[in-house]
């Protein structure tokens, strides 16, 4: 709670904390201290790598198959790796070929088409998984044989009885090139959802850029609006017209689905971000620019409420909601988030509005503007950076929240589950299935990450202007 003065308007440094400082003075690290400069670069690199390493692990894991995740660490996924694979030959009842004289064969390849894996050794029993070299023939007893040659082609030969039932198991030790798949996203979100999203986003971006450069000559000054606007229209238009999902993946469990939880999270987040802003903006204006007895006391009251743990509010408010008939549901969670977000909103906005130039407001008053007009026409547009800062805070906070949703939203049916809760449940039920977990987690953190990188400037401003929750 930075009650310390860190007002963004007063502090020019706050504007671009994330930009490097353009000063020639280098802490005296010039010339003979080049070694120290190198040490600084190296330590920063190390720190950054350490910090992004865990997230990268999750991201890469979400693009690997369950087998790959279980057999090698994700950090080896970028390079060819030696893996022990268990492969079954094609089902003999479907594909066996009658060679005459009661001899049947099954032919095929242990790898999927286009794979560039190379086999080092192979076997047919768990007791010795690398008993044979390439080109050797394994004797399975009673004349039944299996031959595996370079490239993964195999021939399995035997009599009618031997070449039936299940396919023969082959244990292969192979060097497998890096391989990534979108399958996990298909499982978690629905078939082709990620692919479609990428295509639509690319289309939207292309149209947006075209509009941006087109508008630059036609109506200068509006090019950003045109670019973003058209891009988003194209993106959402594609989603609307072509749809996102084309069914579910075979074998996907319905409890793995994040699509419903994603929309539930959206439904919670957007109203819970917008409504407190409106309420807080009016209150902040009154606290900043209107004179009335008890103003200082009220500000102190709000500063105090900033740090009240919301844990205290759970039971009393749940009881209240149940008594007045709201119960557990979206309305309750919107109200709760609004209440919990208000102190920060009022505090941030008030600090910002106090810093606005007095002249503008007084001139407007002299010209006969009412307070309402001043607020809507002058203060609100000027306060955009502070509004954006708070909006990001509240968005991240409500999107990432688990506790409030668990208490005020999610009822016994579980139909209103949010993503954070869904992930916690997956941790319980699918604790070892990293392909599902990693993908689900990445789906839930993707949107905040996009917002974070797109609007970092405002987030930093907000942090400096006041506080965090």
């Amino acid at each position, binding site marked *: 709670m*930075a009650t310390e003065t860190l007002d963004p308007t007063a502090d020019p440094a706050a504007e671009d904390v994330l930009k490097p400082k353009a000063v020639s003075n280098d802490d005296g690290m010039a010339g003979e201290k080049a070694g120290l400069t190198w040490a600084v670069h190296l330590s*920063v690199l190390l720190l950054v790598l350490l910090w992004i390493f865990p997230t990268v692990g999750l991201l890469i894991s979400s693009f690997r198959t369950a087998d790959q995740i*279980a057999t090698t660490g994700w950090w080896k996924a970028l390079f060819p790796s030696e893996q022990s694979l268990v492969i079954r030959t094609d089902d003999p009842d479907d594909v066996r070929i009658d060679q005459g004289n009661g001899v049947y064969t099954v032919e095929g390849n242990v790898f999927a088409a286009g794979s560039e894996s190379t086999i080092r050794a192979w076997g047919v029993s768990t007791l010795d998984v690398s008993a044979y070299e390439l080109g050797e023939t394994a004797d399975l007893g009673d004349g039944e044989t299996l031959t595996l040659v370079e490239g993964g082609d195999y021939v399995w030969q035997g009599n009618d009885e031997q070449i039936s039932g299940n396919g023969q198991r082959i244990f292969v030790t192979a060097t497998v090139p890096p391989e990534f798949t979108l399958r996990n996203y298909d499982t978690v979100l629905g078939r082709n959802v990620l692919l479609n999203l990428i295509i639509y986003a690319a289309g939207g971006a292309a149209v947006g850029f075209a509009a941006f450069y087109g508008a630059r000559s036609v109506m200068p000054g509006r090019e950003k609006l045109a670019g973003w606007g058209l891009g988003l229209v194209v993106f959402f238009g594609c989603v609307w017209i072509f749809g996102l999902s084309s069914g579910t993946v075979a074998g996907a469990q319905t409890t793995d689905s994040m699509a419903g939880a994603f929309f539930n999270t959206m439904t919670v987040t957007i109203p819970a971000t917008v409504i407190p802003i409106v309420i807080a903006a009016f209150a902040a204006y009154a606290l900043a620019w209107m004179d009335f007895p008890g103003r200082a006391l009220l500000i102190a009251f709000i500063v105090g409420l900033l740090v009240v743990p919301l844990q205290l509010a759970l039971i009393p408010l749940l009881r209240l909601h149940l008594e007045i008939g709201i119960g557990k549901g979206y309305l309750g969670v919107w109200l709760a988030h609004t209440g919990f977000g208000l102190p920060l909103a009022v505090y941030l906005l008030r600090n910002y509005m106090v810093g606005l130039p007095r002249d503008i407001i007084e001139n407007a008053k002299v010209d006969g503007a*009412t307070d309402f007009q001043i607020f809507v026409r002058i203060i609100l547009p000027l306060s955009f950076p502070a509004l954006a800062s708070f909006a990001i805070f509240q968005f991240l906070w409500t999107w990432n929240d688990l506790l409030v949703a668990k208490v005020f939203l999610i009822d016994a049916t579980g139909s209103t589950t949010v993503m954070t809760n869904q992930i916690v449940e997956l941790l319980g039920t699918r604790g070892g299935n990293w392909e599902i977990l990693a993908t689900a987690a990445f789906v839930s953190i993707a949107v905040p990450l996009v917002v974070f990188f797109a609007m*970092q400037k405002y987030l930093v401003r907000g942090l400096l202007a006041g506080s965090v929750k």
Partner: protein
Amino acid sequence: MNPAFQGLLTILIGVGGCLGYFYFSNLLLDRVIFPGRGANAGRNINRANMVRPWLFLFPAIFALGLYLAYPVLETLRLSLTERIPGGGLRWVGFDNYIQMASESKFWEAMRNNMMWLVVVPAASTAFGLLAAQLTDRISWGSVAKSLVFMPMAISFVGASVIFKLVYDTRPAGQEQIGVLNALWLQFDGGLGSILLLKIVPALLVLAFAAATLLVGWRLLEPMIRSQPGRKLTAGPVVLRILGLLVAAFLLWHCVTGLIALATYRYNYGAPQTWLTIPFWNNFFLMIVLVWIQTGFAMVILSAALRGIPEETVEAAIVDGANPFQIFFSIKVPQIMGTIVVVWTTITLVVLKVFDIVFAMTNGQWETQVLANYMYDKLFRSNDWGVGSASAMVIMLLVTPILVWNVYNARKEMR
């Protein structure tokens, strides 16, 4: 009704309702109740202007009162009562607190919370300060900062999944897919292992002990060596003694820790289930929060470092100070105020930490913390009395920071 549609409707009703309320209540005030025309125009305008602030404030005050102020009082009341089967509440005085104090889980949560309170703010602030200073003047500093700052956007639950993958364990003999175990299996008890696992930690503990000693000496010095013209009053003396006690406590732990470190025999070559090792698993959970909060500390401290007047640094360079002296003797003292702010802010986050423990261990294997203990009591055992009592404990721990913030805010406004 489709929830998405319901959400859209709520935005429209919420925003429209708020704007409508503000617009029409102002209109009502100016035109009907105190019209700014006719005989009493002047007086009416004044009266309207006295009422108007409260029109602007009413929704906010109402929501704040109902959703934050009232629950504090109500929780206090609940913590002193007990539910009667069939409805209603019965006054039981401090029984809930006494019952809570007799539970070992509560003391485990208290002990763990205290560890969190020491480790997480200290580590986050230290890393944040380091990152802020290092990235400040290099060309790609902005990119580096963005990446260190990024975990701020990730939910505690998401971070828990990320770190569960880091801590993952496979049975011995299989290839480890968790980074920590893969690293751990590289140690074989040779010279490198001893260097990294015995000597480096020992040096770290020694450095921490030295820092504690230094702080302790700074606290003690004015009390035993009376300086002319400076008299110590009672309040600061009490604070100093408290600080000394904490320092002594930490020093004692440093000593016992060093002994334990020297005698401990590592279980080389066996994969570890990190989250089930009592005591140490707390630290593996803390790493998650440190990872998230470092970016916050870095951003705030980075701004503070830039606010330092260039002249002070230049003067130090002229006087021949080396970069380390400049950092520790010139820069850090000047941003002490901001460091305190960062520290207290992270302390608040730590006191409320719930999701990480809930998602990773759910308080098993001696990792319970207060917020999760409270959740357990409220929603699993349905024991509102004890649950509310533990919520009050969290409130009590937050109160000093609350008072300090209000005090500062009021001082600033004068």
